[in-house]
C-alpha cells in the first residue's frame, strides 16, 4: 500500500458532498428536529448582574394557557456536576441555588405546548432580587485574579537583563473588547427520553463531550445518551461546552416525560454560550538597532465568569513566534460578574497575534526597517523553545508569496504617503505562527458488495468541509471515486472523536481514517490469504496498491481484483475496520510538530475627516501542510479573514454599568456584512507536514490571527496613528 502523502500539496477542489442538501434546505440542523407531542421551552433570565433571588413568583405563568411546568432553583432536582474536559471544567448549573452571578443568568425555564405560549408565559414569571454591586471590567481592582491559571507560563533566558541591555526597548499595552461568537444558527436543544435513554439534538461541536456531560449530570451510563449533530449552523467555539440551557432542556423533557425543544433567542446567544473575553496585554520587547529581537516579555489578562473557568492562553504563541533568545510569558485571569467567556475562533492566538504583530510593526518604524524584513531577520529556523527542527515550516515562503501577490515591494515606507482624494490609503502586514493541537480520534471504514465505502465518526462538520475531505481521503486510500464514499458524522454512537475545534479535527480524523483504511485493506488481504482463486493470495499490505476500486500488486496492476469480487466469493456482505490516531508527539521525538503558518497583508482606506475605515484588499499566504481540498480549505481561510475584519473594525460586546449587554442583537452588535468584505486572496504554500502520515496541519483558525494586526498596521501606515485597542472604530481615529 502506498502512503497517502504523494507529496502534492493541494487536494482536488471537489465540491462539498453535502452541498446539494445545504442549497435545497434539506440539511437538518438541531433546531429543525421535531417530535409529535413535543413541548417548547423558554428561558427567564436574570435582570441583575450580582446578588440573590429574594422571591420568585411563578403563579401567573403556571396558569397561563398551555403552560406545562416552570422549573426554577426551588423545584429543580439536584444534578451532578458536569465533567472536566480537555478545555476545562463544565459550566456552573445556574438553578443550583438562588445566587445570581451575571446578568442574563437563567433563573427559570417555562415549558408549554407551543413556543408562543412558552414565550408569553416566561414574561409572567416575577423575580425579585437582593442586588449586589457587580464586579465588571478587566482591570477592576475588586476582581479576584488567578496567576498562571492554565499552567502554560514559560520562561527561557534572562529576559530582564536582555531587555535592560537592548538599544530598543519597546513597552506598550493593548486592549481588546469582548466579542461574541454569534454563529447564525440559534443554539437549540431537542431532547427526547425513551425507556431511560435520552436522544439529544444539540448545537454542539463535540458530540462525544455532550454525551459525556449529559450522562454525568443525569447519572446515566454514556450508552444511555445519544447526541446527534449531523449539521450545525456554525459554532466558532460556542459549541465546545454543554451549556446550562441544554441541561435544562434535557431536564424538562425528563420531568414532563415528553420531548422538549429549547431554541435560544439571539439576545440569549450573547449571554448563554460564551464569548471571547475582554483582554489587556503588556508587551515588552528588546531589540538591536539593526533589527535583531533579543527578548520578549508578554503579560496578558483575560476575564472569566465568577465561579467559572475559561482557558484563554493569549501569550501561548509568543515564545516560538520568533527566534528571540529570551522569552517569558505571564497569564492572568480575572473573575467578573459576566456570562462566562469561552473559546472563540483562534482563542488566545487572535489576541496575542494582534499585540505581537502590532509591536513588530512599531519596532520596524523605530529602527527604520521594512516590517517584512524585520520578520525575515528574526525567522525561527528551528523551534525556539526546544531547538528541534520543525516538522514543517514554510513561513518564509508565506512571506515571499504573500508579498509578491499583494505587491508589497511597491509600498512606500512613510506613513500618510498614499492618498485617494479624501481617503488615506495604507498597507500593513503580519506573520502568524499557530500552535499545533490535536487529540485522539477513531474512525470506522467499511466496503460492501457494491464496492462503495462508508466512513463513520462521531466528529461534526461545522461547515469546515469535514464530510468532503473525509470522503476524498477515504477515496484516495481505497482507490475509489469520491462518489463511492459515504460519510456519517455527528452522532455520539459512532467512533469517538475530539471536538471540531482548535484546528485539530482534520489532523486527527485524517489519521484515524488512514489507519482504518490500512486495517481494512489488511482485512481484505487476510480474507484471500489462502484463496487459490485470488491473484492477491498470500500478499501483504506493502506489496499491493489500490486503484479503480481494485486491490492489485503494486508492481503488476493487472494482477488484482475488486472489493466486490472478494466479498462475493467469500460470502461476505461487507468488511469493516476500525482505525485510531493518537496525534500526541511521542517522548524523544526528534522534531517539533508544527502548526500552521501564515503571512497576511492588508490595504485600508481611512476617510481623513470622518475616520471611517474600509478594507480594500486582504491577502493571505498559508502553510497548512497538505491541503486535502483546495476549495474548502480556501473557504476556511477566507472565512477566518472575514472574522478578522470584524475583530479589527467592528465587533465589541458592550456591557453597561449594571453588567447588562447593551448591544445583544445582530442589529446592534456589528459583524461583517457583504459590503464590508472585498475580494480576498489566498495562496497555499509549503508541503506535507513530516510528523503525521497524511501531512495535514489544521487550518481552521490560522487565517484569523494576523488580520487584526495587518489592518491596524495598515491604519497606521495610512494615518500615522497607532491604535492598540480593538475594534478600531472611527472615534479612535478622530
Amino acid at each position: 500500500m502506498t502512503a497517502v502523502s504523494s507529496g502534492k500539496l493541494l487536494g482536488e477542489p471537489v465540491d462539498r458532498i453535502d452541498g446539494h442538501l445545504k442549497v435545497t434546505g434539506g440539511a437538518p440542523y438541531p433546531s429543525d428536529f421535531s417530535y409529535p407531542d413535543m413541548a417548547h421551552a423558554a428561558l427567564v433570565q436574570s435582570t441583575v448582574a450580582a446578588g440573590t433571588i429574594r422571591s420568585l413568583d411563578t403563579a401567573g405563568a403556571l396558569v397561563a394557557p398551555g403552560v406545562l411546568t416552570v422549573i426554577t432553583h426551588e423545584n429543580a432536582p439536584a444534578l451532578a456536576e458536569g465533567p472536566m474536559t480537555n478545555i476545562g471544567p463544565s459550566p456552573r448549573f445556574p438553578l443550583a441555588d438562588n445566587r445570581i452571578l451575571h446578568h442574563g443568568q437563567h433563573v427559570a425555564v417555562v415549558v408549554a405546548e407551543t413556543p408562543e405560549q412558552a414565550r408569553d408565559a416566561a414574561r409572567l414569571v416575577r423575580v425579585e432580587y437582593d442586588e449586589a454591586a457587580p464586579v465588571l471590567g478587566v482591570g477592576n481592582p475588586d476582581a479576584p485574579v488567578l496567576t498562571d491559571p492554565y499552567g502554560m507560563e514559560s520562561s527561557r533566558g534572562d529576559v530582564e537583563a536582555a531587555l535592560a541591555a537592548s538599544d530598543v526597548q519597546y513597552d506598550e499595552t493593548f486592549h481588546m473588547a469582548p466579542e461574541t461568537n454569534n454563529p447564525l444558527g440559534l443554539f437549540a436543544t431537542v431532547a427526547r427520553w425513551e425507556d431511560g435513554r435520552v436522544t439529544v439534538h444539540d448545537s454542539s461541536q463535540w458530540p462525544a463531550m455532550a454525551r459525556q456531560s449529559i450522562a454525568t449530570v443525569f447519572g446515566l451510563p454514556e450508552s444511555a445518551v445519544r447526541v446527534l449533530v449531523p449539521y450545525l449552523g456554525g459554532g466558532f467555539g460556542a459549541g465546545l461546552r454543554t451549556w446550562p440551557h441544554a441541561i435544562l432542556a434535557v431536564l424538562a423533557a425528563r420531568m414532563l416525560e415528553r420531548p422538549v425543544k429549547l431554541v435560544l433567542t439571539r439576545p440569549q446567544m450573547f449571554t448563554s454560550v460564551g464569548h471571547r473575553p475582554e483582554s489587556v496585554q503588556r508587551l515588552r520587547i528588546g531589540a538591536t538597532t539593526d533589527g535583531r529581537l533579543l527578548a520578549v516579555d508578554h503579560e496578558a489578562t483575560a476575564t472569566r465568569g465568577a465561579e467559572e473557568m475559561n482557558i484563554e492562553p493569549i501569550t501561548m504563541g509568543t515564545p516560538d513566534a520568533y527566534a528571540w533568545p529570551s522569552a517569558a510569558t505571564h497569564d492572568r485571569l480575572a473573575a467578573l460578574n459576566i456570562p462566562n467567556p469561552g473559546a472563540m475562533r483562534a482563542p488566545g492566538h487572535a489576541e496575542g497575534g494582534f499585540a505581537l504583530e502590532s509591536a513588530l510593526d512599531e519596532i520596524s518604524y523605530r529602527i527604520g526597517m521594512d516590517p517584512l524584513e524585520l520578520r525575515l531577520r528574526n525567522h525561527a529556523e528551528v523551534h525556539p523553545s526546544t531547538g528541534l527542527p520543525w516538522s514543517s515550516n514554510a513561513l518564509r515562503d508565506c512571506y515571499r508569496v504573500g508579498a509578491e501577490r499583494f505587491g508589497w515591494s511597491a509600498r512606500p515606507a512613510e506613513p500618510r504617503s498614499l492618498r485617494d482624494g479624501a481617503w488615506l490609503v495604507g498597507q500593513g502586514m503580519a506573520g502568524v505562527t499557530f500552535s499545533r493541537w490535536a487529540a485522539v480520534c477513531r474512525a470506522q471504514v467499511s466496503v460492501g458488495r457494491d464496492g462503495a465505502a462508508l466512513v463513520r465518526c462521531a466528529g461534526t462538520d461545522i461547515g469546515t468541509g469535514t464530510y468532503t475531505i473525509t470522503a476524498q481521503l477515504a477515496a484516495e486510500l481505497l482507490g475509489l471515486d469520491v462518489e463511492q464514499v459515504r460519510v456519517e458524522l455527528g452522532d455520539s454512537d459512532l467512533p469517538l472523536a475530539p471536538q471540531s475545534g482548535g484546528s485539530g479535527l482534520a489532523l486527527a480524523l485524517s489519521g484515524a481514517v488512514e489507519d482504518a483504511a490500512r486495517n481494512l485493506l489488511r482485512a481484505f488481504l487476510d480474507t484471500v490469504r489462502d484463496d487459490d482463486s485470488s491473484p492477491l493470495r498470500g500478499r501483504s499490505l506493502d506489496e499491493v496498491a489500490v486503484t479503480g476500486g481494485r486491490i492489485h500488486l503494486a508492481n503488476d496492476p493487472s494482477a488484482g481484483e475488486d472489493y466486490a469480487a472478494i466479498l462475493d466469493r467469500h460470502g461476505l456482505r461487507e468488511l469493516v475496520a476500525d482505525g485510531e490516531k493518537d496525534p500526541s508527539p511521542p517522548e524523544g521525538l526528534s522534531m517539533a510538530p508544527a502548526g500552521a503558518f501564515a503571512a497576511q497583508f492588508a490595504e485600508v482606506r481611512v476617510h481623513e475627516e470622518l475616520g471611517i475605515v474600509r478594507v480594500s484588499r486582504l491577502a493571505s499566504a498559508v502553510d497548512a501542510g497538505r491541503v486535502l481540498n483546495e476549495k474548502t480549505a480556501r473557504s476556511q481561510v477566507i472565512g477566518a479573514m472575514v472574522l478578522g475584519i470584524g475583530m479589527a473594525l467592528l465587533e465589541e460586546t458592550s456591557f453597561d454599568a449594571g453588567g447588562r449587554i447593551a448591544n445583544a442583537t445582530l442589529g446592534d452588535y456589528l459583524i461583517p456584512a457583504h459590503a464590508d468584505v472585498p475580494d480576498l486572496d489566498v495562496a497555499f504554500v509549503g508541503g506535507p507536514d513530516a510528523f503525521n502520515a497524511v501531512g495535514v496541519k489544521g487550518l481552521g483558525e490560522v487565517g484569523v490571527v494576523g488580520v487584526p494586526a495587518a489592518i491596524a498596521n495598515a491604519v497606521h501606515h495610512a494615518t500615522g496613528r497607532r491604535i492598540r485597542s480593538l475594534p478600531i472604530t472611527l472615534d479612535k481615529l478622530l
Partner: protein
Amino acid sequence: MATSSTTGRTTGEVRVNGEARRLDLDSRVTLLDMLRDHLGLTGTKKGCDQGACGACTVHLDGRPVVSCLVLAAQCDGREVRTVESLARDGRLHPLQEAFIRHDGFQCGFCTPGQLMSAAALLAQRRASSADEVREAMSGNLCRCGAYPNIVAAIRDVAEQNGTAGDGGPGAARNGAA
C-alpha cells in the same frame, strides 16, 4: 386570514410553493414559524427572529421579505415561495448550482436566505457589478464569511443568463423572482 380576538386564532389560506394550504393558527405565529413548525418546511432558517440577519428570507408575492417580521395572519390569499421551491423537477436552480460550484457556504445555515435574496436580486436585475451585489446582499449575514464566494456565484449566474442588469436608475426593483 380571519383573526378572532376571543379565540386568539387566525384562519385562512396561503399558497406555499404553489400549493394551497388552509391554516388555523395562534394569531401570534409568524410566517417563519408557520413554515417551519406548522408546514414542516424547515429549509427557511431562524437566525435572529428580529429581522437583522436575513436567514429567513422568503418571497411573499414575489418580493423578498424576512419572514420573522411577517405574521402568518398577514398572508391570507397571498403567495409564498421558499428555498424548497427553487429546484424544479429535481433540477437545481442555476443559483443553487453556482453556490455549490463556488463554495458559497460553509455551515449552510444562512444559505436558504442568501439564495432567496439572490434570486430576487437577479429578478430585479441588480447584479451588474460585484459592488452592487455586495450592497444589495448586505441584509444577509454569513458568519462563516463565505461572502466572496457568494458574490462570485451570483455574478456567475447573472452573467450566464443576462440578468446582471445595468445598475442604472431604470433597473426594476420590484420584479417577481
